């Protein structure tokens, strides 16, 4: 059963095809990886799925719903959440506030909230408890009161993850979750992602450059190069796929 289906998605920036008929399928319960050299179109694809980017042609479906007319803020209600490549937190707010904002789709109605009616306050107390639980899963419970821009990068990455988790998603889109992390931080994040997938039944689609991480965590992988699909398969197949090796070697030669 699939969670997300993309078929022949194309995006043009001027005359340049950022995405050229890209197709992929995220199966329910999987951790699907999307890899490729720099500039392959991975983040553009992510932005299409999370609706920050328009696609000129193609079909994007989640369950029965076609995404063409969906706006970014509507994804959360559909059970889809994302993180951002260079993290995108609410810098002036505390860790707790960041998580609470992630739960925005679960707040009491604006009218009751603004007047601080008892129903709204009850809902706030409930959300606070849930926020603590999420902070616990991700391991940031002791930073709840800190302003996020005073936290180290590795912790900020986790706050970003907590914010995405806060809305109780069925599908999590992770854009380079371990970028800029050292080995220890990467291992910890891998554990968390596995926990989310296996214990909380959250399907994951992730973009990543760290090959070791991708090969160890993903159940299925799609490879893009120059905006096109060049391969897909289980990690073992991908590792030995000549087209994939060529694409990455090509990148090495250029740099």
């Amino acid at each position: 059963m699939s969670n997300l289906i993309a078929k022949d998605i194309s995006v043009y920036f001027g005359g340049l095809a950022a995405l050229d008929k890209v197709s992929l399928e995220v199966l329910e319960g999987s951790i699907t990886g999307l890899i490729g050299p720099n500039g392959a179109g991975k983040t553009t694809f992510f932005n299409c799925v999370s609706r920050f980017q328009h696609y000129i042609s193609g079909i994007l479906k989640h369950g029965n719903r076609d995404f063409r007319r969906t706006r970014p803020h509507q994804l959360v209600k559909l059970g889809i959440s994302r993180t951002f490549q260079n993290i995108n937190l609410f810098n002036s707010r505390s860790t707790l506030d960041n998580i609470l904002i992630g739960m925005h789709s679960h707040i009491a109605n604006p009218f009751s909230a603004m007047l601080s009616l008892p129903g709204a306050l009850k809902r706030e107390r409930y959300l606070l408890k849930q926020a603590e639980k999420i902070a616990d899963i991700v391991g940031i419970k002791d930073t709840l009161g800190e302003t996020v821009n005073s936290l180290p990068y590795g912790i900020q990455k986790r706050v970003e993850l907590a914010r995405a988790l806060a809305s109780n998603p069925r599908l999590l889109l992770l854009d380079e979750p371990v970028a800029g992390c050292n080995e220890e931080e990467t291992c910890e994040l891998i554990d968390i992602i596995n926990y989310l997938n296996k214990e909380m039944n959250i399907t994951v689609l992730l973009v990543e450059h760290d090959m070791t991480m991708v090969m160890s965590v993903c159940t299925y992988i799609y490879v893009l190069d120059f905006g096109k699909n060049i391969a897909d398969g289980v990690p073992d197949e991908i590792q030995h796929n000549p087209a994939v090796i060529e694409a990455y070697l090509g990148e090495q030669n250029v740099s």
Partner: protein
Amino acid sequence: MNSREVLKVNKANLLLAFIVLGGLLILPFFIESFYASLLSMTYIYIIAAIGVNILTGYTGLVTVGHGGFFAIGAYTSALMGQYLGTSLLPGLFAGGITAGIVGFLLGFIFLRLAGAFLAIGTLGFAFAIGSIINNWPVFEGREGITLAPNNIFGFEFGDVGFYYVCLITGALIFLFAWSIIRSAIGRAFMAVRDSERASEASGINLRLYKTLSFAISAAFTGVAGVLFAHHTNYVSSETFADIWISVDFLVAVVVGGQASLAGSMLGGAFVVLLPYYLSELRDFASILKGVVLILVLLFAPAGLASIFQKFFQKTVFRVFPVKLDER
């Protein structure tokens, strides 16, 4: 930090609020009615500053045009008084609601504008309102409209009575603003300010929250406008088509402290009382206002509220942990 602490009211702040409110309630018995009138004007500017702060300080949408909403509130009440014979109370509601509706529409029109372009747009709005007031006959332009003496349900009152009207209205607006800011809605406003992308990814409908912020902000400033009109019982384009009102509001918010209700109070007081106390040196007051603004931006960008907060922190914080900045 315990998450339960988030919902608790800061007891020191509550105590401070009661002390201040109590003091202001009994103040008229100890001062001449002229000073009561001056303080009424201060409360009016504080209400307007709270309005501007919600949009600019909390939601991050810069406005240099709130004088337009101020005028809308004032003229709504004035015209209602002229054609329907109503006075202060209906005027307050009608002025606030009318300004709020226009604010909502303006917020919608300006959805795609940001930063400097948004500021220019709001400036254009203020000029447009000023132009309408000057040129449409119904508003009587420079000749202006005189309002009936202030009364509630027929009971007339003077400067001291009006002082209490402004104080109570101000206290209610303050309370409402405080409730909004503490709530999930206030959180959403600040999220929009900090990152629109992350806000949308979190499920926040930008269109809804930007227009809502505009509407609330405009309504508050509109209410201030109604009170201003009834302060002198006279409206004319000479006062209301003046673009400097909008600038004064922004100065109040920046000097007092963005995203701080205490800051709005300090800023509102600054903008009203400075020119009064330097009234002999009229032009100098304006220059000084500008100088203070620049000094604040350079050395204390979080405004007077942050300066007072530091002071409190160094002195009475142990026994009296007030929190003046942010919320």
